[in-house]
């Protein structure tokens, strides 16, 4: 993990609030692995905390981030222009484990699609199907359907309002398919539903989690914890999303009701 000044290669608007940021950041890119994240720091000095953003793609010296503008930080980054500089720290955390199962599903909800892009490239095309859930048709702008189609054997999309693909959530397009392995990232309600699904069907799965962070993955502040089961018992302990995760074994993780 290092702190590095990244240079903006490009910053493209995908939808009204999602943008794709390509950064030249050789030191971090060299070590980056699929499913890890980086911290982006605000220029505005009133905002001290790091903004954790998943690594969406790793292209040589460059990292691609897919960001949704939701607050001060992500709005600040939206205004970055080519050649601007921005401070980044990473790569952080434990990413996805590449498996060699036959029937693999990538399940992404909203901006949680981001870390699945690199993953799609690394998994065997013929084993991997993609299930994406978004709110409405406009969001097709960031889901990289083309890329997923190229790298995987099928892509299904659900929209909440039914304006594109199937109407409903990503759970609705998973249907009754049988999988050996599911990789997922997305909003908490989606992960909760998936958790029930994989537990019930006894499917292996890895979830990429989100939690508010203080130190941004140094592992020193203990702000970003999630509940992880201890052995096979009912017991759990708080583990750090930033360093134990962000990707965790779905069997281990416990969500609050």
């Amino acid at each position, binding site marked *: 993990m290092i702190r590095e000044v990244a240079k903006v290669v490009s910053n493209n608007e995908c939808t009204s609030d999602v943008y794709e940021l390509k950064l030249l950041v050789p030191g971090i890119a060299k070590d980056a692995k699929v499913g890890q994240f980086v911290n982006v720091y605000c220029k505005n000095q009133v905002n001290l905390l790091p903004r954790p953003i998943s690594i969406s793609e790793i292209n040589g010296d460059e990292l691609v981030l897919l960001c949704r503008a939701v607050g001060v930080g992500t709005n600040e980054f939206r205004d970055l222009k080519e050649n601007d500089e921005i401070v980044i720290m990473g790569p952080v955390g434990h990413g996805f484990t590449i498996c060699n199962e036959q029937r693999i599903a990538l399940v992404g909800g909203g901006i949680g699609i981001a870390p699945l892009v690199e993953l799609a490239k690394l998994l065997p095309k013929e084993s991997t199907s993609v299930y994406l859930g978004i709110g409405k048709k406009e969001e097709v702008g960031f889901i990289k359907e083309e890329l997923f189609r190229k790298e995987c054997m099928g892509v299904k999309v659900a929209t909440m309002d039914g304006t594109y693909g199937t109407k409903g959530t990503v759970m609705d397009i998973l249907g009754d398919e049988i999988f050996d392995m599911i990789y997922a990232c997305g909003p908490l309600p989606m992960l909760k539903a998936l958790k029930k699904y994989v537990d019930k069907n006894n499917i292996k799965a890895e979830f990429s989690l989100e939690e508010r962070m203080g*130190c*941004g993955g140094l592992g*020193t502040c203990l702000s970003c*914890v999630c509940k992880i089961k201890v052995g096979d018992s009912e017991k759990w302990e708080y583990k750090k999303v930033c360093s134990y995760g962000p990707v965790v074994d779905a069997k281990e993780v416990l969500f609050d009701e």
Partner: protein
Amino acid sequence: MSRLEVSLAGVKLRNPVMPASGTFGSGYEMSEVMNIHRLGAVVTKGVSMEPWLGNPTPRVAETTSGMLNSIGLQNSGIEELIKIDIKSLQEYRQKGGVVIVNLAGHTIQEYIQVAERLNSESIDMMELNISCPNVKEGGAAFGTDPSVAEKVVREVKKVCTKPLIVKLTPNVTDIVSIAKAVEAGGADVISLINTLMGARIDIEKRQFVLAKKYGGLSGPAIKPVALRMVHQVAQNVKVPIIGLGGIITAEDAIEFIMAGATAVAVGTATFNNVNALENIIDGINTWCENHNIGNIMEIKGVV
């Protein structure tokens, strides 16, 4: 004596800069991103006798030029700290670094047990946290009443064989009376400030950002309060002071020393910039050089 060397209750520090407890893990986590051997001291996160679970999440919230935390002193207990954390700091210690363990407790008895258990370990000082706003019993409850504070310190001092730092909460009407009380109780060093209690609301969700509603405010926002309290206390006690609260730059650190602190600690700044501690050490050194200062203690309390 070198330019930055200072002494805290007989313990020599190669420079007056250390991390603030709870913001630096136990130090070794940071070795990956910085050279911890440069630090005057390392202060470990708060430790209790038994493991503590800590609070539900969200545990942090950003505020204007600051942050709130309600970690709730999650820790794996003293045995784990000794086995892993203190052990991992031995190289640092052997090379002249000072190891300070921050103690947490729900009861006086628990503080005593932790201190006793630590007496025989390879550490240099203990820091008694009677100021954590995020736990119900213990913590700040002990730090807001002078007579209670004095009693806790006196009892811990009875068993503790290392120099004892006592860390104070700023959430009090009269910081001087608390400082005098812990000095009377036997504190060898006073550190201040811990966090101010604060809150933030997410107006769209119509709820507090932190799961526990209130948390401890740290960062540059609180620096003026910290500096005022360090000065007030320095005017009224004889024991040395570790000043902290919102230090981001070397200039901030120098302000605390001019207000009367012998050493400084840096917390939130590290979250924003992993190089903050090293930058501060370098910056103090350069400032002293430029101002012909032989030893940093020449400017202690000059205001």
